[in-house]
């Protein structure tokens, strides 16, 4: 027989999960089917989808390329300011994305780094590059956090043994550490892609959210909601939800493989 506590806790879990499910499910109920088809085939939606995939692909690859050595160095090496660097990397996870967006705008605007980059013809603010930069900084701390835990979890003695068998530090990293971290790298990659695709406020601040120019799927949702175009807004929401479901399904599959 189930205890009172067990029944109460399970009831809470079921009730709130059901509400969340209904909220997500309601996205699929409200628009008319024709309206949904028209919306997803519209030039704006296709453009936003392409831009989202394009920018998220680039930013995700960049995030992983930078996050792997960052997380590894935090996990394995001792160096000055390590604790401070770790805290700074954790900050964006704690404060709202709107603050990150504002901070990036201040950095890449004309005042600080932006002015310097502009001398070399690199424009960040209100450009597609700005979308990639915003997505990068939204996802980067999450990727580092997952990879940091992954590397910490791997016994350093695997690396010791490899080196004692003649492999250099980098060869060991490549042939032992990376293969042993593949689950964590994969999970981190999935989260990174999801964060990059879903990045909204930081993208809006840095890239401007200009119609058909710097318009990613979350921006499409926002712009069309502002104009009262519910079919487009909800369709953009549905596309984002589908992408998220795919990401979760892949993650689930990875989880099952790991359990085996």
């Amino acid at each position, binding site marked *: 027989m189930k205890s009172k506590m067990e029944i109460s806790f399970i009831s809470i879990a079921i009730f709130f999960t059901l509400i969340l499910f209904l909220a997500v499910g309601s996205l699929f109920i409200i628009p008319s089917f024709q309206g949904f088809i028209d919306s997803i085939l519209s030039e704006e939606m296709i453009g936003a989808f392409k831009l989202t995939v394009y920018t998220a692909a680039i930013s995700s690859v960049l995030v992983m390329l930078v996050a792997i050595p960052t997380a590894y160095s935090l996990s394995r090496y001792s160096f000055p300011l390590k604790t401070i660097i770790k805290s700074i990397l954790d900050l964006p996870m704690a404060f709202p994305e709107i603050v990150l967006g504002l901070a990036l705008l201040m950095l890449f605007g004309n005042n600080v780094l932006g002015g310097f980059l502009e001398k070399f013809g690199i424009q960040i603010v209100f450009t597609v590059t700005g979308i990639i930069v915003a997505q990068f900084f939204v996802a980067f701390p999450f990727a580092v956090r997952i990879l940091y835990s992954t590397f910490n979890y791997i*016994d350093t*003695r*695997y690396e*010791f*043994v*490899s*080196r*004692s*068998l*003649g*492999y*250099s*530090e980098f*060869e060991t990293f490549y042939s*032992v550490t990376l*293969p*042993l971290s*593949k689950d964590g790298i994969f999970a981190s990659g999935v989260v990174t892609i999801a964060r990059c695709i879903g990045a909204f406020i930081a993208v809006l601040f840095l890239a401007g959210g200009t119609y058909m120019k710097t318009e990613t799927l979350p921006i499409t949702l926002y712009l069309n909601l502002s104009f009262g175009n519910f079919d487009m807004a909800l369709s953009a929401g549905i596309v984002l939800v589908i992408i998220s479901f795919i990401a979760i399904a892949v993650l689930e599959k990875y989880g099952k493989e790991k359990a085996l």
Partner: protein
Amino acid sequence: MIRLFLDIKDLSVDLEEFHLQNINLQIEEGDYQVLIGPTGSGKSVLLETIAGFYKPYHGKILLEGKNITSLNPEDRGISIVYQDYVLFPHMNVFENIAYGLKKKNNGNESSLESSVYEMAEKLKIDHLLKRDTRTLSGGEMQRTAIARSLIVEPKLLLMDEPFSAVDVNTHAHLTTLIKNVIEEYQTTCIHVTHDFNDVYNLAERVAVMKDGKILQQGTLHDVFSRPSDNFVAKFVGVHNVFQGEIIGHDKSILKIKINHDIIIHSSDVFEHYSSKKTDVMVAIRPESIIFSNEPFISSVRNQLKGVVRDMFEVGHTVWIEVQVGDVTFRGVLTPNSCESLGIKIGKEIYLSFKSLNVNLMEYHNDDYST
């Protein structure tokens, strides 16, 4: 002059929470050196420092006369085997064994397969080569780990409690197997263990560590029969350690008074002794004590009468505590001997031990205990 194979000089390592201090260790080629000491004494850190995973801030390590202190681990030719195997889980048995050899052969795979097979055959794991390492038993995993280390023909093999995670039967079998393979390859070894059976079965030389220092090193006989201090004595099973005073000598035999009224004789050489009275620590191994119901005439210099205070079984032996004056001596017998002598608590009994078996150690104030 014999050139040392491994010569560690004044080695000190700082790992913040742990320090190795002024380690000196000398090993000749082909030696089987065993490191013993309580948990946390620094045995594993010493192995990993020799392998190059930790950088010492003082001292040096010479291997075959070459200073390897600042060499990277991969350039030292030193392999390491851990207690919990540390087999690469993303590789099968074959790939694990072949891992180091592949690098050593520089990608040349022609002889790789036959070498792996040959090594696996020696360690009796040739039927497991295609197996996932996670499906192996403890003994099979350890044999794979040792094969992986030996196949690269290291100059020095380091083993950190290699048999402590396997069951008793496997342990005995593995000890013999590994001993034979290591002898065949003439590999110089340093083996960390807590198991005295390993020490008796494998060690040619023993070093005792405590708190990041080597307290004593020498042959198995030296360390176990002539411990250098009270800690080593207790650690290697010398349960009779007393504070005493050298009160005279008769030729080479020293006369020692322990606890006011007990006089015993030792033929040990004690360099700190002059003609004056000298404080000393006395150590007698329990196995050296002979029990008898009557005094007997023999060459044995020490014969004491006492009363059995306690007796308890440990494995296949019976430990007997005998009170002589205020001093308790501990000896060990088989249950059969115990029975035939009719030993029981409260019985009067004679203890005899040779002066040769009374070892003397320098007296330290904090060493005193009976």
